[in-house]
C-alpha cells in the first residue's frame, strides 16, 4: 500500500470501523431482547461482514479473523441451522468487545496482533457447535496461511499456565482506581479437588467468598451459571484487587474441597499499559510458550516496521448532522447579502453622499449583522454538540453484565438521551457515569433476597436521565437501593478528627463522600458499601469539567447523584468585574446575584469574615485579599454572590462592570498554581481577563 497516504487511510478506516463496532454492540443488545427477529440477525451479520472486509483490506489479520468467525456464526443463525441461545449470544458479545478493544488499540498506535483471540474464538465455535466456526487456534497448522498469525494470538494457553485475562475498558478502570486506593493486584489460581463431583458450584463458592472481601475484576472461566460446563471449572483464575492479602487468602482457603490456591502479586502496569493489558503474556509468569510468542513478534516488528504501528491517530474529523450545516449555510448567505449592502453604502459615502442620509440604513444593516453573527456563533456551537446517547447507549450493556455478574436483577431506565452536550465534555463524562452506575449496582442495590426482606420489589431499578436546565446540562443517576446513613459518615468524620463534623448538616456530611481519602475501602464497608472512588468522580466533574456533583440519599430508599455540567467549555456568559487594576470574569452559572454590602454587615476577623445572605451566614471573600493586597476600607462594598453546588459566598469586588460572553482559553499552570482560574480570555481591546474558578469557595469552606 506504499504510495497511498497510510495515515489518512488508517484514520478513515478507524472512523468507519468504530462506528460499525458501536452499531454492532447496539444491535447485539437489541437482538438479545428479540432473538427471533430475522432483520436484526441480518443487520448484525452485515456489520460483522463489513468489519471483516474492511480490516482485511487494511491488513489487520487478527481483527479480520475474529470478525470473520463471528460472521460465520451469524451466517448459521441466519440460515436457521443455529438457534441464538445464551451461549451463542454471550460469545458474540465477547467477540464484539474484543473487536472494539482492538480498534481502540489501533487508534492509539498499537496493533491488533497484541491481542489473544484464542479464548473468544473457542467460545464462538463451542457455542455454535463444530460447524463452520471451527477454531483454527485449536490446530494452528490447519489454518490457511494467510490468516494464520504466528504471534501469540494463535497460540492457545499452555496447559497448566494461567488462563489469559483479557480486560475491557471497564475492568481497566477498576484497576486504575484500585491502584489509586493503594490496593494490591492479585491473581489467584484456584484448583478444585479432583474428588469434587460438582466443580462449578465449588468454584462459585470461592468466587462468592472472594467478592465479599475484595474487588473481583475478572474470572476465567466466567462465573455465569445456567449454562456452565462443570468440567471447565477444575481450575479458575481470578484477578482481584484488595487491601488485605491475608483476608483474600482466608476467604479462598476457608472453602472445603479446594485442592490448592496460588496467589501471585501482579503489577498494575502489566494490565493497564495499552495493548499489553489485553494479552496474557505480559502479566503471566514466563513460560516457554509465551516467550516464544514474544520473540516471534519482536522479530516480525523488526523486519517490518509497518504502518500499522504508526503513532496514535488523532481524530481530526467529526460527524455533524447535515441540518446543522444547512443552518450555518443559510446564515452565511445572509451575511454575504448584508456585506454587499454595506459595501454599496460605503461606496455611496465615498462618492460624496451625505453620511446622515444613509445613517438609518447603516444602523439597520449593523443590527442585522449583529443577529447574523450571533446566529453563526450558535450554529457553529451546535456543530460541537452531540447527543448524550453516545454515552447512554453503553449503559444497557454495562448494567446487563454487572447485574449478571453480581446476581442482582436490575431494570435500567434511560431518559433524555437526545439531550445535546459539547463533544469535549461527552468524552470526559463517560468514565464518571460508568463509575456511579457501577457503585449503584455494586453497593446500592441489594440482593433480591434482601430486597424482598425490606419489602421492595426483588428487581432493582437504576435510572439515568439527562436534561437541559438553563446554561447547564443536568444528569441524574438514581437507584432504589439501600441508601446511606449520614450519621455513620459523621461518626467516621469525627473519628478521623475532622473539626466541626459534629455539627455538619446532612448535605455537608454527604459531600464528604467526594473527599479524597474519605472513600477508602474501610470507610466504605462502614457506610454499607458506598462511595468507592467518588473522589475521582468529583475531581473529574468539578475540576476538569467545571461542573458540580451533588449526592442525596435516603436509607432503604436509594441514592441519587446529580451532575451539573456546563453546556460548553469554550464560550461562557460571564460577569466582568475589576479587582484593583485587573479584570476578572465570573461565569454567570456561578453567580447568584450582585449585592451591595454595608461594612457593618460584615462580621468576624479578617480572613474568616461572613455576612448574612437570605438570612443565612455566608462567607465573605474579596478579590483584593485573594490576590495579594487586602480589601480597601470603605463604608460600602460591591459584591457578587457566588454559588458552587449548595455553597454560597460573597465576593467583594472593586467594580461590577458588565455581563458579556468571553471565550475561554487554557491558562498556563505557572499563572495558576493556586487553581483559582479555569482559563483566561482576551478582550477586543487586548486586555487580559482571568476567569475565576468558583470552586475555591468550596475548598475554603472547611
Amino acid at each position, binding site marked *: 500500500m506504499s504510495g497511498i497516504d497510510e495515515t489518512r487511510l488508517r484514520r478513515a478506516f478507524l472512523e468507519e470501523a468504530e462506528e460499525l463496532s458501536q452499531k454492532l454492540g447496539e444491535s447485539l443488545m437489541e437482538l438479545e431482547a428479540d432473538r427471533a427477529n430475522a432483520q436484526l440477525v441480518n443487520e448484525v451479520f452485515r456489520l460483522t461482514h463489513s468489519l471483516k472486509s474492511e480490516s482485511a483490506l487494511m491488513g489487520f489479520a487478527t481483527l479480520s479473523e475474529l470478525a470473520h468467525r463471528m460472521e460465520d456464526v451469524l451466517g448459521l443463525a441466519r440460515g436457521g441451522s443455529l438457534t441464538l441461545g445464551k451461549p451463542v449470544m454471550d460469545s458474540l458479545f465477547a467477540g464484539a468487545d474484543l473487536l472494539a478493544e482492538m480498534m481502540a488499540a489501533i487508534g492509539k498506535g498499537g496493533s491488533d496482533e497484541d491481542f489473544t483471540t484464542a479464548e473468544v474464538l473457542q467460545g464462538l465455535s463451542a457455542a455454535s457447535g463444530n460447524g463452520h466456526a471451527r477454531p483454527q487456534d485449536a490446530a494452528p497448522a490447519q489454518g490457511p496461511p494467510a490468516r494464520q498469525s504466528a504471534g501469540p494470538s494463535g497460540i492457545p494457553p499452555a496447559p497448566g499456565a494461567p488462563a489469559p485475562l483479557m480486560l475491557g475498558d471497564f475492568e481497566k478502570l477498576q484497576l486504575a482506581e484500585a491502584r489509586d486506593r493503594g490496593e494490591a493486584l492479585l491473581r489467584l489460581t484456584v484448583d478444585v479437588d479432583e474428588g*469434587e*463431583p*460438582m466443580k*462449578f*458450584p465449588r468454584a*462459585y*463458592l470461592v468466587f*462468592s467468598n472472594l467478592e465479599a472481601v475484595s474487588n473481583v475484576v475478572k474470572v476465567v472461566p466466567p462465573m455465569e*451459571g*445456567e449454562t*456452565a460446563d*462443570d468440567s471447565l471449572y477444575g481450575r479458575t483464575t481470578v484477578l482481584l484487587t484488595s487491601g488485605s492479602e491475608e483476608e483474600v487468602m482466608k476467604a479462598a482457603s*476457608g*472453602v*472445603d*474441597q479446594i485442592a490448592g490456591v496460588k496467589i501471585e502479586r501482579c503489577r498494575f502496569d502489566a494490565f493497564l499499559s495499552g495493548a499489553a493489558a489485553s494479552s496474557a503474556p505480559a502479566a503471566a509468569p514466563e513460560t516457554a510458550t509465551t516467550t516464544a510468542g514474544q520473540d516471534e513478534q519482536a522479530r516480525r516488528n523488526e523486519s517490518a516496521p509497518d504502518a500499522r504501528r504508526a503513532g496514535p491517530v488523532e481524530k481530526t474529523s467529526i460527524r455533524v448532522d447535515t441540518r446543522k450545516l444547512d443552518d450555518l449555510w443559510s446564515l452565511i448567505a445572509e451575511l454575504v447579502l448584508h456585506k454587499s449592502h454595506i459595501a454599496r453604502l460605503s461606496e455611496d459615502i465615498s462618492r460624496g453622499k451625505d453620511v446622515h442620509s444613509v445613517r438609518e440604513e447603516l444602523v439597520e444593516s449593523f443590527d442585522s449583522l449583529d443577529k447574523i453573527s450571533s446566529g453563526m456563533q450558535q450554529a457553529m456551537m451546535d456543530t460541537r454538540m452531540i447527543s448524550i446517547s453516545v454515552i447512554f447507549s453503553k449503559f444497557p450493556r454495562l448494567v446487563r453484565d454487572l447485574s449478571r455478574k453480581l*446476581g442482582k436483577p436490575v431494570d435500567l431506565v434511560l431518559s433524555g438521551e437526545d439531550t445535546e452536550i459539547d463533544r469535549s465534555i461527552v468524552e470526559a463524562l463517560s468514565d464518571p457515569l460508568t463509575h456511579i452506575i457501577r457503585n449503584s449496582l455494586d453497593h446500592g442495590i441489594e*440482593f433480591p*433476597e*434482601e430486597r424482598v*426482606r425490606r419489602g421492595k420489589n426483588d428487581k432493582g431499578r437504576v435510572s439515568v436521565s439527562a436534561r437541559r436546565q438553563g446554561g447547564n446540562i443536568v444528569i441524574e443517576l438514581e437507584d432504589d437501593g439501600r441508601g446511606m446513613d449520614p450519621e455513620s459518615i459523621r461518626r467516621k468524620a469525627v473519628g478521623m478528627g475532622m473539626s466541626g463534623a459534629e455539627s455538619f448538616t446532612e448535605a455537608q456530611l454527604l459531600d464528604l463522600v467526594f473527599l479524597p481519602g474519605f472513600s477508602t475501602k474501610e470507610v466504605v464497608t462502614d457506610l454499607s458499601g458506598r462511595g468507592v472512588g467518588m473522589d475521582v468522580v468529583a475531581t473529574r466533574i468539578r475540576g476538569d469539567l467545571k461542573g458540580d456533583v451533588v449526592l442525596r440519599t435516603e436509607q432503604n430508599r436509594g441514592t441519587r447523584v446529580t451532575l451539573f455540567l456546563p453546556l460548553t467549555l469554550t464560550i461562557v456568559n460571564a460577569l466582568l468585574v475589576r479587582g484593583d487594576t485587573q479584570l476578572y470574569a465570573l461565569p454567570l452559572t456561578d453567580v447568584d446575584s450582585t449585592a451591595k454590602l454595608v461594612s457593618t454587615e460584615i462580621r468576624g476577623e479578617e480572613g474568616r469574615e461572613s455576612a448574612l445572605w437570605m438570612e443565612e451566614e455566608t462567607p465573605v471573600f474579596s478579590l483584593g485579599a485573594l490576590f495579594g493586597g487586602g480589601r480597601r476600607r470603605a463604608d460600602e462594598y460591591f459584591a457578587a454572590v457566588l454559588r458552587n453546588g449548595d455553597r454560597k459566598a460573597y465576593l467583594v469586588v472593586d467594580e461590577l462592570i458588565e455581563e458579556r460572553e468571553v471565550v475561554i482559553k487554557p491558562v498556563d499552570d505557572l499563572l495558576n498554581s493556586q487553581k483559582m482560574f479555569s482559563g483566561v480570555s482576551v478582550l477586543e481591546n487586548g486586555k487580559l481577563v482571568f476567569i475565576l474558578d468558583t470552586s475555591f469557595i468550596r475548598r475554603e469552606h472547611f
Partner: protein
Amino acid sequence: MGATILIADDLSFMRMIQKEILTERGYTIAGEAADGREAVEKFKNLRPDLVLLDITMPNMNGLEAMRKIFKIDPHARVIMCSALGQQNLIVEAIKAGVKDFIVKPFKPERILSAIDKALKS
C-alpha cells in the same frame, strides 16, 4: 455440649445416617425435619447452630426453605445437600448465602469437614 444441628431430608434413612455421623463426632442433633415446611418451623423454634438442608423435598423444597430461614435469621449457617446435576440450584443458594454444599452420595469425612468449616466461620 457440641454445636446443635438441624437435619432436613425427606428420606428417613438419609437422616439416620447423618445423625449417626454427627453424633459420633460429638454434635448434638437439635431436631429432624421431613420436608421444607417442617424445617422452617423447627428452625424457628429450635434455633440450631447449623442446618443441613436437602434441596429436593416435598411440600416446600430446600431452596424455598432456605429463603424462609434466612428471613428469620440472615446469619443462619446453612449447608445444602444436593444430588448431582443441581449445579444451578446450588449456585442460587450460594448467592443467597449458604456456607457450603454437599453432593449425595457423600462420605462421612466430607460432611464432617464441611460442617466443621462452616461452624468456624
